[in-house]
């Protein structure tokens, strides 16, 4: 029996619902997203309900997580970035748990659908644009001109900067989607080899499957971390125009 390694990414409607021509059917990805949301909410509520001075296991884990996200925000945005803490913590926890739950055999990796990652990326980038124009007004367009650019370079620099700005949401969305999809395709191919190889040679790809699964856990963390860091960097750019460039020189 041959099966495409992309087969696990296909979605079938479990409960077809159509609302005014809009397809809002329930499928596996939707259910897994509900599971992730309720899992994260339950964990955080349970961890926060005790509020002991000497934290228990769950509470200290939640405190470490919050402290970690706080560290990212302080490193990239500074103190005024803390007002975005709820959004950034939610994004981080949701993406992290989506990535991790997808590693359980039989479940589904929601972040391997580019629709999901693109919505997050557009949300983050749109928010940074709105923040920038609210804080700086028309001067925010100055983000297209790096400081210290000579006037004769402007016709070249503005298109380049425009492209690199527009590339931000795309690189955010594609990075997460591509990493999760590629990891699961590799896992699928290796496991297919293990099954078709039989006992004589099949143990070799099976051992690789186990090793890759461990690597994928690391990738799940790193991808959630990168998405969060870049969210902070883009929002921070909207806050202090050219702040980082001046800092670097």
């Amino acid at each position: 029996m041959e099966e495409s390694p992309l087969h696990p990414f296909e979605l079938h409607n479990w409960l077809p619902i159509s609302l005014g021509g809009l397809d809002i059917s329930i499928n596996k990805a939707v259910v897994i997203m509900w599971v992730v949301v309720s899992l994260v909410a339950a964990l955080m509520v349970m961890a926060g309900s005790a509020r002991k001075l000497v934290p228990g296991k769950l509470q200290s884990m939640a405190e470490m997580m919050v402290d970690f996200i706080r560290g990212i925000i302080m490193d990239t945005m500074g103190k005024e970035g803390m007002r975005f803490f709820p959004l950034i913590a939610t994004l981080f926890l949701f993406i992290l748990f989506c990535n991790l739950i997808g590693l359980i055999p039989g479940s589904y990796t929601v972040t391997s659908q580019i629709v999901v990652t693109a919505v997050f990326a557009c949300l983050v980038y749109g928010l940074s644009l709105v923040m920038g124009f609210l804080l700086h007004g028309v001067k925010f367009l100055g983000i297209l001109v790096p400081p210290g650019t000579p006037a004769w370079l402007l016709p070249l620099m503005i298109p380049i900067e425009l492209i690199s700005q527009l590339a931000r949401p795309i690189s955010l969305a594609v990075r997460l989607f591509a990493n999760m999809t590629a990891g699961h395709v590799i896992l699928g191919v290796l496991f297919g080899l293990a099954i078709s190889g039989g006992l004589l040679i099949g143990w070799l790809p099976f051992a690789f499957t186990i090793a890759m699964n461990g690597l994928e856990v690391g990738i799940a963390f790193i991808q959630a971390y990168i998405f969060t860091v870049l969210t902070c960097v883009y929002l921070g750019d909207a806050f202090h125009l050219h702040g980082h460039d001046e800092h670097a020189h």
Partner: protein
Amino acid sequence: MPPSQDPLYAGLGQAVRIGTDLLAALIVGGGLGWVCDTYLFGSTPWGIVGGLVLGVMAGIRNAYRSAQRWPKT
């Protein structure tokens, strides 16, 4: 859970970023050039050629800029 100052995680994060930064700028540049060609000016090969060149420049500039932010160790 790694702390944000962990050099291994920070380094891996930086390394993974740069590849997609290059690629995304190239996609956007080529895409804008293609839109100019097909819908706006009808300047068929030149829009996508110029867009790709600008995209490569923007991608390298993106990678350079994120490398500038690396912590010095």
